[in-house]
């Protein structure tokens, strides 16, 4: 069971580039790329920073694959 995320979709909705989001949450752009590809599961700290940027609860951005609607 994998953890998926809506980072790519939300980033597009907020008109943010990968670089801008990376700067906002203090990581490298490659980490955002890996996140969006599903190759990397972030720490709680990073997930909370991303949630704060998108003004959403963490569970609306990161979810178990099984919970996908």
């Amino acid at each position, binding site marked *: 069971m994998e953890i998926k995320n809506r980072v790519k979709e939300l980033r597009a909705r907020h008109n943010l580039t990968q670089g801008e989001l990376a700067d906002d949450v203090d*990581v490298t752009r490659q980490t955002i790329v890996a996140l969006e590809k599903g190759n990397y599961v972030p720490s709680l700290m990073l997930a909370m920073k991303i949630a704060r940027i998108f003004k959403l609860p963490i569970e609306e951005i990161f979810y178990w694959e099984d919970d996908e609607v």
Partner: protein
Amino acid sequence: MKALRNGFSIIIMLILFGWAMSVFYYVSIDIVEFFKDTSRDYLFEVNIMPFIAFFTIGGFVAFLSFRHKKRNSKEFSKAIWLPDEFAENDEREQLITARACRAAYISMLYAFPVITVLLLFYPFVSETIPYYPIIVFSLLPLTQILTYLISWQKNYG
């Protein structure tokens, strides 16, 4: 991919250092011979080519590394002591580096007995390759660096 490039620079430096030390082995032999026979008119002879290569290329690599760290490091005083192939700019890079270090540690456990066995062959080749232990001993860091780089590339993807 800077980590990979830096890793290969380290490998080149390691090979050049091994070459320089192999040459220096002959210098040591010469010095020992001189003390046995002080009537000789020279202390030692040395091929300075590997030393020139090591210090020229090494100096250039060290300069690039120094400049890069000075520009990009938050804590320069700490970064100066760390190898260039350590990329730890965020949590993901720290994780990749940690995995690569783990792989390099495991590789050491396997490489060490193999290298020790290879040293047992020294009496057979001591006449033809007197610097054999230097070459064999250099295989240990070489194995670890290569393992580190392979792991890094695999996990960075």
